[in-house]
């Protein structure tokens, strides 16, 4: 009869002393985990439907609800965890690929948690960010080694063309690519509004650009992914930069998938595909089978916007990320985005998300080092992505060599996401990873943008404090400055790859 028990992941605890049967939980849960019995007037819960998004807990006016983890009761086994056993049960029942959302949740080492920052004392004063200017401004884009005015050019022309190829950022934190389709239009609007107000950038992801969002173009990076969804001339002109997406950290080597149910009329128009059809992004770009093909696409896009916008490339962090990045810079990219192991997604096969790729800390270190060894570090800006949880992670990434950092999961958490990893169902109660009009209403872009601006502001202030502590008052003096980092609990090889000394060692 071979069935296999699937333990509900969560248990809904309802304190009956506090529950007043106001039915708010019953009304809002998109998974129907709360049920109202009209006859008895009592609200009950169905644990197996709960995904642990905590939306009901948030709204309950008396605090009667508690969502608790419900660990599997499979006998303790260091190898055969409850999850391993239950995954097999699921797959033998369905014959399907197990899907998931958001980023890798497995206990691979988080190198950020093994890196510590310096502070200046005695020999070098720390700088007080409340009294001294602290500059986080940075420019994205490739830079020459020096000012060269060639025959037939004027100094003014060279300067103007340089500055137009650069994107100024008020803070080194950008919003990562999250497509309209994987997230709701209200979520995208929140990101766009917050990016504009904070002087940073947001990214279309693979979803094309909705007409309502064209006014936010000056703060936008438009993505050209393998499916080429929504790519037309106005689209390319709309943004401040163009990003060719070769891969992403959550699913290196495979393409994207937006199920047909999520392709509503608006999405169909924005992505330029028929309504109700699956939006499949192929694994490779079918016109890029080698590095020279990539160079052709980069220049084709530069021609299309008449060299007035930077064109960059986004790749997943894999084993050969250093030579790949080096090749990309040589192919003419103005910026390279590296998405690490912990990068998030709206939908991916769980086994790919959890087992493919390498951590971003190592990737940034080796790419930065390789580019410097080849004397071409200035030719492109490096943007790191994948699992940045707080401002300390950002500072450590810059010290390892990144020019700026993309945050995805953190931004969604600011909008309410509780990382329940069920984005692929399209039933996100927070109104983020859904197109269901009942649910998308729940994300008010005014509130969303406000929270994102707050997040960026808080992190920027913290970064200034940390910089001041290190005796640095300009972000460019931190970029690649591995001297400001020390490692704890890492082996020699790890430290060598990161280029960081062990804590306790001075100069």
């Amino acid at each position, binding site marked *: 009869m071979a069935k296999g028990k699937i333990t509900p992941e969560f248990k809904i605890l309802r304190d009956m002393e506090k529950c007043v*049967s106001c039915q708010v939980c019953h009304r809002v849960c998109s998974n129907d985990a709360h049920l109202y019995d009209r006859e008895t007037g009592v609200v009950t819960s169905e644990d197996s439907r709960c995904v642990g998004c905590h939306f009901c807990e948030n*709204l309950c006016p008396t605090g009667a609800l508690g969502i608790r983890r419900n660990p599997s009761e499979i006998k303790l086994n260091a190898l055969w965890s409850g999850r391993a056993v239950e995954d097999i049960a699921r797959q033998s029942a369905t014959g399907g690929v197990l899907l998931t959302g958001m980023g890798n949740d497995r206990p691979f080492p988080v190198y950020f948690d093994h890196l510590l920052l310096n502070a200046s004392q005695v020999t070098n004063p720390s700088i007080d960010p409340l009294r001294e200017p602290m500059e986080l401004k940075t420019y994205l884009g490739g830079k020459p080694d020096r000012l060269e005015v060639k025959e037939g050019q004027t100094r003014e022309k060279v300067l103007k063309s340089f500055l137009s190829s650069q994107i100024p950022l008020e803070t080194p934190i950008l919003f990562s690519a999250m497509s309209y389709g994987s997230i709701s239009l209200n979520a995208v609007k929140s990101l766009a509004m917050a990016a504009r107000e904070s002087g940073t950038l947001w990214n279309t992801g693979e979803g094309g650009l909705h007409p309502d969002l064209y006014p936010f173009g000056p703060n936008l990076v438009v993505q050209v992914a393998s499916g080429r969804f929504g790519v037309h001339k106005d689209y390319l002109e709309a943004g401040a930069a163009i990003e060719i997406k070769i891969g992403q950290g959550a699913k290196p080597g495979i393409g994207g998938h937006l199920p047909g149910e999520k392709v509503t009329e608006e999405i169909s128009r924005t992505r330029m595909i028929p309504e109700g059809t699956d939006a499949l992004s192929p694994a490779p770009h079918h016109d890029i089978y080698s590095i020279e093909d990539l160079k052709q696409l980069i220049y084709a896009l530069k021609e299309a916007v008449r060299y007035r916008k930077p064109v960059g490339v986004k790749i997943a962090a894999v084993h050969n990320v250093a030579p790949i990045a080096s090749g990309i810079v040589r192919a003419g990219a103005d910026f390279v985005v590296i998405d690490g192991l912990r990068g998030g997604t709206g939908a991916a096969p769980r086994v790919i998300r959890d087992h493919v790729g390498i951590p971003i800390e190592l990737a940034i270190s080796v790419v930065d080092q390789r580019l410097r060894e080849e004397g071409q570090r200035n030719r492109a800006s490096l943007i790191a992505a994948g699992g940045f949880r707080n401002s300390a992670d950002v500072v450590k990434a810059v010290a390892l060599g990144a020019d700026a950092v993309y945050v995805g999961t953190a931004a969604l958490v600011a909008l309410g996401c509780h990382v329940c990893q069920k984005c692929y169902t399209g039933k996100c109660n927070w109104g983020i990873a859904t197109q269901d009009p009942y649910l998308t209403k729940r994300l008010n872009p005014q509130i969303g943008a406000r929270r994102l601006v707050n997040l960026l502001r808080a992190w920027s202030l913290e970064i200034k404090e940390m910089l001041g502590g290190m005796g640095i008052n300009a972000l460019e003096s931190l970029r690649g400055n591995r001297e400001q980092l020390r490692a704890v609990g890492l082996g020699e090889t790890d430290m060598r790859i990161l280029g960081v000394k062990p804590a306790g060692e001075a100069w």
Partner: protein
Amino acid sequence: MKKIFIHEEYCMNCRLCEVHCIVQNSKTRNIIKAYKGESPKPISRVLVEEQGYLSFALQCRHCEDAPCLDACITGAMHRDPDRGAVLADEERCVGCWMCIMVCPFGVISRNVEGKRVISKCNLCQGEEIPVCVKNCPNEAIVFEEEK
């Protein structure tokens, strides 16, 4: 005059506005006691209208030329000179229901279990912000000056 304005695109039909209105108009102003203890349970002056995925909270509009003011036979319905709100004096109301019949928005209710008089939003007299507005989790109703 500050009024309650509706942003129906953000209403999620949770009806927390109704819950808090009930509490505000209860004797104890304590949610658990109001729901479980008080009898009759107070009624909400705000009601969420819904059709499909469209929903919004609707309460007395405190109209500039309020038909209910004219219709009231006892003068129980009167205007508050400070806030400009239309208030119902429950002591004076005799339950003729004329105001309910003339109200174009249908936002006056009959309080059948209690004193058999009408029940209507009074803009939360004594509060700075009406509790429905304060507790809406998505700012689907706001309290601002008329533009």
